[in-house]
């Protein structure tokens, strides 16, 4: 274990040590970024196949259908459909969002924004990526084995996920992949927590950290505590599947003494609810910073924002039962979980009001990172509100397991985190690669994402409210659901449209990498530490470790006499 001394490490010289097995947090961040974007593409394609099936049941998939599903004449077969939604959820959550938001931004932003030369444990950091890589390889492998990939949903509830529900090796490989991924996440968490505590630049108190770092730090803490809970769950599931234990088997399928399938649900959601906040916290932090930067105003109540993020993190550990209202828990438990769930609304409301307070009367610059951040404000608002309907037992009994839930978590998780991730990519791309992304194409990408996105996810809320269940191969065999065919068509059309506009993003990404305009040190005119050094930063980030004298959001101070409307964190706070 190499204790980080925050000293200048010698620069690697060979291709392998520079780009592949690099210890440099900036290189590891980029590795995670490409990894995440790759899986975003895979998961996105799966989503399109799911949507095609729901809008046009029994119709062959155009263009790729005959290649992928030659056995069924190009139509997605029912068992493949179950694999698709399982792998879509798993890939998006663990292999796309997690690597981009936590792996890429966590690695890139934490050391740079707190004025450190690298993470506390660079070797561990590298291992974290390669474990993630291994995990992704195992998951992809499971797509190509006989009997196919896991098909029990991303939640992999028994008995769908035991040998009775899924006899193939796919589900076992799924568990193995998730377990390896958990090891990778825990390694990352050890690094992030330690780095934030020990490597902040002199003068930087916790409340002088950008909110991005706050979000990533809280995420890392939740990761270290709750990922092992899922780890325990999947180990037991593996033992059930491979060695014949009976943890999750009940009734006639368990020989003597009964296991308990519902126990897995408890374990899954004790992990799962913190996990949804693990995913959203980095995006929240990024958006909280960007809203201030591009409104040219200090973040409204930044301290309260940091503290409400902290209390949301703490409360998020106590509400998991709201996923299980229909499992016949005792009414006392149901009501407690409902009350605790509603309690989260209080810090969430403070937090949300602070966002609005930040942009209120700002001199807003509508650059692409800001557009995406404003998008997050809108979609997260909708997502959070729909959470209230689901957190209330009486309405959840009706809405549970319908597309309303799918709409809710796509608004909160998919839409918010995705837009937040894009905001971060457009914002830090100049620092990462030393070139600007094309702003016009970025704006096209924003509107081309934002409008269809609402078509998709609002449509899901509607069909769910109309009674359409999730995870059904062909809902329209039920006559009562046939009236929902037009809305389903709208959703699918929007999804194809949104998919198309992601190509604009990929094009912009590649083009800007190769021939984008050269970026200056500080193209967005903000004062956090990473913008005081060249773009891209040198191998050791800071020649001299900076000394921090003020907070990260000192913009629009009327007393500034420097000709700029912001000040760097290394400058003494200007007072009247």
């Amino acid at each position: 274990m190499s204790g980080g001394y925050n000293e200048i490490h010698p620069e690697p010289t060979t291709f392998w040590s520079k780009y592949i097995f690099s210890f440099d947090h900036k290189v590891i961040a980029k590795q995670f970024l490409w990894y995440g974007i790759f899986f975003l593409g895979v998961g996105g394609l799966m989503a399109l196949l799911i949507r095609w099936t729901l809008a046009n049941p029994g119709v062959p998939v155009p263009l790729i259908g005959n290649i992928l599903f030659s056995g069924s004449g190009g139509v997605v077969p029912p068992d493949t459909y179950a694999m698709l939604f399982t792998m879509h959820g798993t890939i998006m959550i663990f292999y796309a969002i997690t690597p981009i938001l936590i792996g890429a931004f966590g690695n890139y932003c934490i050391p740079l924004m707190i004025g450190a030369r690298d993470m506390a444990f660079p070797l561990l950091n590298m291992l974290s990526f390669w474990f993630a890589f291994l995990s992704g390889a195992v998951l992809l492998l499971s797509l190509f084995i006989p009997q196919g990939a896991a098909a029990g949903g991303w939640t992999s509830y028994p008995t769908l996920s035991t040998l009775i529900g899924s006899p193939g090796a796919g589900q076992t490989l799924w568990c193995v992949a998730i377990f390896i991924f958990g090891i990778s996440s825990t390694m990352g968490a050890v690094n992030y927590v330690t780095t934030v505590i020990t490597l902040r630049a002199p003068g930087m108190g916790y409340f002088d950290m950008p909110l991005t770092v706050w979000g990533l730090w809280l995420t890392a803490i939740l990761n270290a505590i709750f990922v092992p809970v899922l780890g325990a769950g999947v180990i037991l599931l593996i033992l059930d599947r491979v060695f014949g234990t009976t943890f999750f088997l009940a009734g006639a399928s368990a020989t003597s003494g009964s296991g308990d399938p519902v126990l897995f649900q408890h374990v899954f959601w004790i992990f799962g609810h913190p996990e949804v906040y693990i995913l959203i916290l980095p995006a929240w932090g990024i958006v909280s910073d960007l809203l201030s930067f591009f409104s040219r105003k200090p973040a409204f109540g930044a301290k309260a924002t940091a503290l409400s993020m902290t209390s949301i993190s703490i409360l998020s550990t106590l509400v998991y039962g709201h996923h299980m209202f229909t499992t016949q828990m005792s009414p006392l438990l149901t009501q407690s979980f409902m009350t605790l769930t509603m309690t989260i609304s209080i810090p969430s409301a403070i937090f949300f009001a602070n966002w609005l307070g930040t942009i209120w009367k700002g001199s807003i610059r509508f650059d692409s990172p800001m557009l995406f951040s404003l998008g997050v404000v809108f979609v997260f608002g909708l997502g959070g509100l729909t959470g209230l309907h689901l957190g209330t037992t009486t309405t959840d009994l009706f809405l549970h397991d319908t597309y309303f839930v799918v709409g809710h978590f796509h608004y909160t998780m998919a839409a918010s985190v995705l837009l937040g991730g894009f905001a971060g990519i457009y914002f830090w791309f100049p620092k990462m690669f030393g070139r600007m992304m094309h702003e016009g194409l970025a704006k096209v990408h924003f509107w081309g994402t934002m409008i269809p996105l609402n078509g998709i996810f609002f449509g899901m809320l509607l069909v769910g409210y109309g009674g359409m269940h999730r995870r059904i191969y062909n809902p329209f065999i039920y006559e009562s659901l046939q009236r929902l065919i037009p809305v389903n068509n709208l959703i699918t059309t929007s999804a194809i449209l949104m998919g198309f506009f992601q190509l604009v993003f990929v094009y912009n990404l590649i083009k800007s990498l190769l021939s984008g305009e050269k970026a200056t040190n500080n193209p967005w005119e903000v004062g956090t530490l990473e913008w005081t050094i060249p773009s891209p930063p040198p191998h050791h980030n800071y020649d001299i470790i900076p000394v921090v004298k003020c907070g990260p959001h000192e913009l629009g101070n009327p007393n500034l006499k420097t000709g700029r409307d912001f000040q760097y964190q290394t400058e003494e706070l200007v007072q009247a």
Partner: protein
Amino acid sequence: MSTRGRSELQINLATNIVIISMAMLFATLFMGYAIYRSSAPVWPPMGVQRVSLLLPSLSTVVLFISSFFCYQVSVSTKKNELSKGHKYLNLTILFGVGFMVLQGLLWNQMKSSGLFVSSGIFASITYAFTWIHFAHMVAGLLALLYLKKILKPETVNLLTKTSSVENFWYFLEIVWIIMFITLFVF
């Protein structure tokens, strides 16, 4: 913060986070066990024999002795008596391996008394928990071997690293004691 103080803090933080993570994994297992056991009409379930206490008790004693030697390692290291430290470290490892051999014997005994992995929830818990603990013992043993390698005067932060490995070994000991009491005694 001095560079030295900082890297000590980093090592301590990292060790504690790793221990917390593993503790959460075991806590989840014990939570499951509590639920199985409290919802079962009788424990052990009908037609299942308890595991004889001999081997688990012996394991407990052996692991306890190993932890005691581990404590002596850090005492000697603090007094800068590294050759003594090496001697105690060898004994720690020896008794650690002894514990693992006893676990192997325990599984054999369970099998020969007709308690197979697939014999229901009681067997599931007994086998799975001891397996998972065993896997962590392997990690602990690797940590001890790492300490063996670095236990020399020129190692930076030797005391901090020694106490990290020591704490990890105690953690494994504590988990085993909880397992011994809840799985085998009561």
